[in-house]
């Protein structure tokens, strides 16, 4: 792990020192010796942010449904479906979406259908179970500690969830958003297959975009060398930095909530 960290950092810094202007530009044109990755950084940032926001909102909804607002039977079904979802390979999500979601977006909103929106939806679906399971374990622990007490004080199950369980698990709910963000920013297959891969600053949800992860995958599978490779190390370095930072914050929040 340490070796990986050092390796990526050294090469990324090397690249940045040798040709900072080219690497931190906005244009990707290997033939013209332009290797700007800024649009990819932008794409990665907004895609992981939008996917984790959508996923987080639904995860919170699912968790509340499982712990009180839904009927017991439906709650069990939802819980099982989410568990099964964790076992589905990413490529299946991507593949199915190309045939199901992409035409829907294309016909409904216009454009090619390969867009920020498409990738956001599928990515949020992919990180949903992770976030629900994280919230679920917190809810379950607190609920088991407070259920009888609350009932004996005249609280309904729903009131216990809203007034006792949710406020108590605030830190866990927030940290699960980070967990989702970490996973979303690192995913490669979904943006490669569904976001369109155009190197541009995506503004509209229907714009195509190329994320850092997709960029690494695409460049590695085609023949370019030299500075193009340096750009990959910079891209990898940024991803590593983001995921490590997200992980550290996640642990800090969790650590504090244990006190």
């Amino acid at each position, binding site marked *: 792990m340490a070796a990986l960290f050092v390796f990526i950092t050294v090469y990324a810094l090397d690249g940045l020192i040798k040709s900072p202007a080219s690497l931190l530009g906005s244009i990707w044109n290997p033939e013209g010796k332009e290797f700007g990755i800024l649009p990819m950084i932008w794409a990665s940032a907004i895609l992981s942010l939008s996917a984790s926001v959508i996923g987080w909102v639904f995860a919170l909804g699912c968790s509340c449904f499982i712990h009180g607002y839904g009927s017991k039977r439906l709650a069990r079904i939802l819980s099982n479906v989410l568990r099964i979802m964790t076992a589905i390979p990413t490529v299946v999500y991507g593949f199915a979406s190309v045939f199901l979601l992409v035409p829907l977006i294309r016909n409904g909103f216009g454009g090619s259908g390969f867009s920020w929106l498409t990738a956001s939806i599928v990515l949020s679906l992919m990180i949903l179970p992770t976030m629900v399971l994280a919230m679920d374990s917190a809810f379950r622990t*607190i609920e088991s*500690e*407070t*259920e*009888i*007490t*609350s*009932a*004996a*004080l*005249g*609280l*309904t*199950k729903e*009131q216990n969830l809203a*007034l*006792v369980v949710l*406020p*108590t698990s605030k830190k866990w709910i927030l940290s699960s958003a980070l967990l989702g963000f970490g996973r979303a920013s690192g995913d490669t297959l979904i943006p490669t297959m569904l976001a369109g891969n155009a190197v541009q600053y995506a503004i509209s949800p229907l714009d195509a975009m190329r994320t850092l992860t997709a960029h690494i995958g695409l460049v590695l599978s085609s023949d370019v060398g030299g500075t193009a490779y340096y750009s990959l190390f910079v891209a990898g370095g940024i991803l590593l930095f983001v995921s490590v930072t997200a992980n550290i914050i996640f642990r800090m929040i969790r650590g504090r909530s244990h006190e």
Partner: protein
Amino acid sequence: MQYCAKIKDLSVSFHGRKAISNISTELPSCGITVLLGRSGSGKTTFLRSLNRLNEIIEGYEGSGNVNLFLGGRSRDIYSDDAPEPTELRRRVGMVFQTPNPLPMSIRRNIILPLSLIPGSKKTENEERMESVLKTTGLWDEVKDRLDTPAGRLSGGQQQRLCLARILALEPEILLLDEPTASLDRRASEVIEKHLLSLKNKYCIVMISHSVRQALKLGSHFIFLRGGNIVASFSKGELPEGKEAENLFNDLL
């Protein structure tokens, strides 16, 4: 004698296993009724059937009648005419074996259940909080740190907070499930003192693990074994001094 509860043919089972069977008895409205018996004899299940708390446990099945004297009249709490379980549990308050403050501040532990009563007012709730904290002797100890987490109080203080929390709801019947079992002797004595001061105001039903405590606090005694009542006495029927203790030990 006046009764606060009349129980007829009460049976409760969990996942098909009988916890109590065909219990019929009457609980006097004044003084403390103490339930005694070994663990597994059905004391807690019996107590929890008086505020319908067994129902939230999975696998519950029950039959029989429990008539409680609430709001000036007798009502079968398992019939259609019964108050909602949430309302019933406010009127039949319960304190548990282990202190169980909710994971929030001292103030909110008392105010939250109060604020859910339809028509409750914020200023009245605050006044009631102060009054019950004084009743349980906690006010001077916590008045400067009402907004700190309740979990930081000592075990004895937490249990007095739980008692205060339930008193704030102004119940008519108090159920106490071994309220001093997890406390040291000094903290137990403080709780016992408060219970004695409350016994003329409320109908109190209490489980006790200690014969000595039962004799000190109780005015009516019910012995359970294997989910059935095996004996019951009122204080007047007991022999004097050590003999009563020996009789109780024999029955356990």
